[in-house]
Structure formats: C-alpha cells, structure tokens
C-alpha cells in the first residue's frame, strides 16, 4: 500500500514518488476518477528530455482527453509499457501498477511541488 503522504503532487493531478534523483510519476486517483475508464495512454519515449510543465503525453478515457505534464525537468528513464498495453491500470491501481514514467531529475526542484495536505485542499478536500 502506497503511503500517499510520502508523495509529492502537482496542480495538474500528477503524483511524484522520489527515490534519490529518480522520480516515478503517475496521475492521482482523483484524476483517474474524473476521467473515467482510461482506454488509451501515450507516454514520452525513454531517453527524451522533458521540461517542467511541458505536455509529454496523453491519457484518454471514453469521455475525454487528459494531458500528462512533466512535473519536473529531467530525462525520461523508463515509460510504463504495461500501462500502454492495459490502460485500465490507471484506474485500478493509480499509485501502483498504473505509474506512467520514471524521470531522472534534480531532487532539489521537488521542493516546489505540493505535499499531500496542499493537494487534498486543492481538490476540495474530497478525500
């Protein structure tokens, strides 16, 4: 079980798990619920450079299209092929098997991200 209080967040509803300078990124359960059933995911290729705030992928549900923003500047180390093959993982396990990309980042920059309390407040305290 993921400790949601140990994660960082963005206002675009991404979560970030930091392990040294390796950031694992996904979208929150709040965002997954809002999207509905995810049916298509497009992710940046391993080896690509991304800048904080840049649109780097797409998450489509039956009803709508969500954009994936890079939460931090860095190099994409790995994209989750399992979630490309089975996009429903984003709904069924958003903080686990539904992770999207791993990015090598400057860990100091993560201080600017939201903590759990700030993110929950942003989503109307719905959790």
């Amino acid at each position, binding site marked *: 079980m993921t400790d949601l209080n140990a994660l960082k967040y963005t206002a675009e509803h991404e979560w970030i798990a930091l392990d040294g300078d390796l950031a694992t990124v996904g979208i929150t359960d709040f965002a997954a619920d809002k999207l509905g*059933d995810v049916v298509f995911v497009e992710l940046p290729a391993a080896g690509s450079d991304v800048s904080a705030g840049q649109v780097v992928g797409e998450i489509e549900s*039956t*009803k709508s299209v969500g954009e994936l923003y890079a939460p931090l500047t860095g190099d994409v180390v790995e994209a989750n092929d399992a979630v490309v093959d089975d996009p429903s993982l984003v709904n069924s396990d958003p903080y686990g098997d539904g992770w999207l990309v791993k990015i090598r980042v400057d860990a100091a920059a993560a201080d600017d991200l939201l903590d759990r309390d700030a993110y929950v407040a942003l989503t109307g305290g719905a959790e």
Partner: protein
Amino acid sequence: MTDPVVPPRHSPLRATHEALGASFTDFGGWLMPVRYTSDLAEHHAVRTAAGIFDISHMAEFLVEGHEAAIFLDYALAGRLSTMPVWKAKYSLLLERSGGILDDLVVYRLGDHSFFVVANAGNHGPVAEALAARVSGFEATVRDVSDEYALIAVQGPIARSVLEATPGIADLGRPLADLPYYAATDAFFEGVPLLVARTGYTGEDGFELYIAASAAARLWDALLAAGSPLGLVPAGLAARDTLRLEAGMPLYGHELSLDIVPAQAGLGRVVASDKNEFVGREGVLADVPADAPVLVGLVADGKRAGRAGYEVYRGDERVGKITSGALSPTLQHPIAMAFVSQAAAADGTALTIDVRGTRIPATVTALPFYRRKK
C-alpha cells in the same frame, strides 16, 4: 458579460444515486449520474445483460383535446394523427427555416391524448414553441416535467427484469406482445405507470414513466429483482457511448437550429406531404450543395476523434466531428461527423486531425452497431 448562474436541478432519485456511490455531471441543467463504478463495465452490461438509467431530466408534455392530433401534425415534422393508440413515434420540432429545435418521442395515449418527451436542454424552447403553436387549436399543452420521473431499463434481459419485478401489475398488454416503439399502461404498487418499449442504446429495452414520488421505490424494486440477472445501474457516460454505437443523434451535437433534417439523415421523419406544418418551407427546399451532411467514420487503433475535431480529405478541410469515442463494443474509434457532400460517400478515405496527428478514417453507413434480433 456573464450568464446568471442557475443552480443545477436534481432528479427525484438523487439520494438513491448518492447511496449507490454515483459520480455526477451537469447535463442540460441537471446534475445526473455520469457513472456508478466504471463506464465501460456499465456499457458492456447493457450490451450483454441490462442497465438501469435515471433519465428523469427529460421534459414531458401532455397534449390533450379534440384537435390534439391535428395540432401535433401542425407543430411537429411527422404525421402524428394517423398513429394508433399506444404507439410511439420519433419526431422533430422544427423552426420555420427547417432548423431543428429538438428531437422528441411522441406516445399516443388515446384518440385525443398524446405524451411528448423532449430533451432537458431544450425544455424552455420546446415549451415556448408548443404553447405558441397550439393557439387556434382546440387542444391544451400541459408541461408535466416536474410530475414525472423516467427510468430506462435497457439490454437483452430488460424484459425479464420487468417481469421479475414485484409490484408491476395490471399491464394493458403483456410485455411479450409489446412491439418496439409501442407502450402500455400499468401500475406499480397502485401508482399509474407508463411502460414504453423505447430507448437510446441500440438494445431492446423499456422506458418507465411514473410519478416522481414513487420513482425511488420503483428503482429499488427493479434493481433488487434485476441484480441477480445481471442488471447494473448505468450512467450518462455509458448512455453516450451506447447511443453513439447505435448511430443515434444527440441534440447539440448532431442536431441544432443550423441543421435541417435531411442533412442529419432524418428526411424520413418529415411528412413533407402534409398540407401545413411549421418548417415546411424550409424542408421542402433542396439542401444547398455546399451544406454538410452527417456521416459515420471508423478508424483503426485506439486514438479517437472527438467532438470538434476537424476532418480532411487530402489537404482540404471537409468537415468536423460532432461525437466520437473509442467504441467499447467494437474496440476501434467511431465518430459521427458533418462533412461536405462530395466527401460523404461510403468508403471515402478521410483523415481526422487528432490534436495535430492525422488519423486515417473511412466513411461508413450508420449505425456502427446493430443488435442481433
């Protein structure tokens, strides 16, 4: 300038949906369930078993009087006066130009009594048009939207669900003998019930009109009886992908004041041989050669064109998508689009601009999905 904020309206089944854990969305000024658990699971349940939908946001009008039938022949595009009692008919409300004010279902309840069901988002304009057009006829139009709730049970086992539901009694006609687009009267726990074999999913199914005060009891009874058979609550997200697969238009997407029926493939709905009806001049004129027409588009892969995306033939922009999704049943993208007549023939190779990427698509006849009889 900003529009005044109008608070959303709630269905009489609001507490029932909240207890079931529904997520809600604004639709036509109403907060209605968009999904309960998973819109894909709800969609598949309707194709394989059945779903129960709350569509109480729909607007209902009771038209009565000696001239009710000829009034509707004048006010609507179809010929309602020759409908047998207990039949249902899909129709259109046109403005003088032939543009579509709303699409409707009309039930004939008696020689001089009709029940007209309109879209929630067009409640006001439909009420105004019917009130204006009835003047001079010996007929009355009563807006009964607030009095009725509407519950749809849709899917191949829908009939079994109704037959298994205790409390539904005194049917004017057994469900086994009730044809598609027909209705009958009945009672639920002593409350009058209108049972119609109609729907908006492409499956067999029923729409049940009942007094708002009895709606929650009816919903609970249907769900309790139907759950063991595979009935699930289903929201507007599933309803939208179901009707799209079935090639059914949605007002505000495929239908609008700027579209005449023939452009949307609805020429058959217009009884243009009627002497006089509102919109006659508009629909008798030929559709201009440069007017776009409604087509189906299919594509490969998983990236769906969506409402508003532009459609090209080669480098030429030929139209725009009005509804689109990855079809849950067919597992490939489908869309309805208005395209120029030269690009509308079945089999025409087009492309869809999906956020900067051109996705090949082929024009195809509607519907995308047809149930096996």
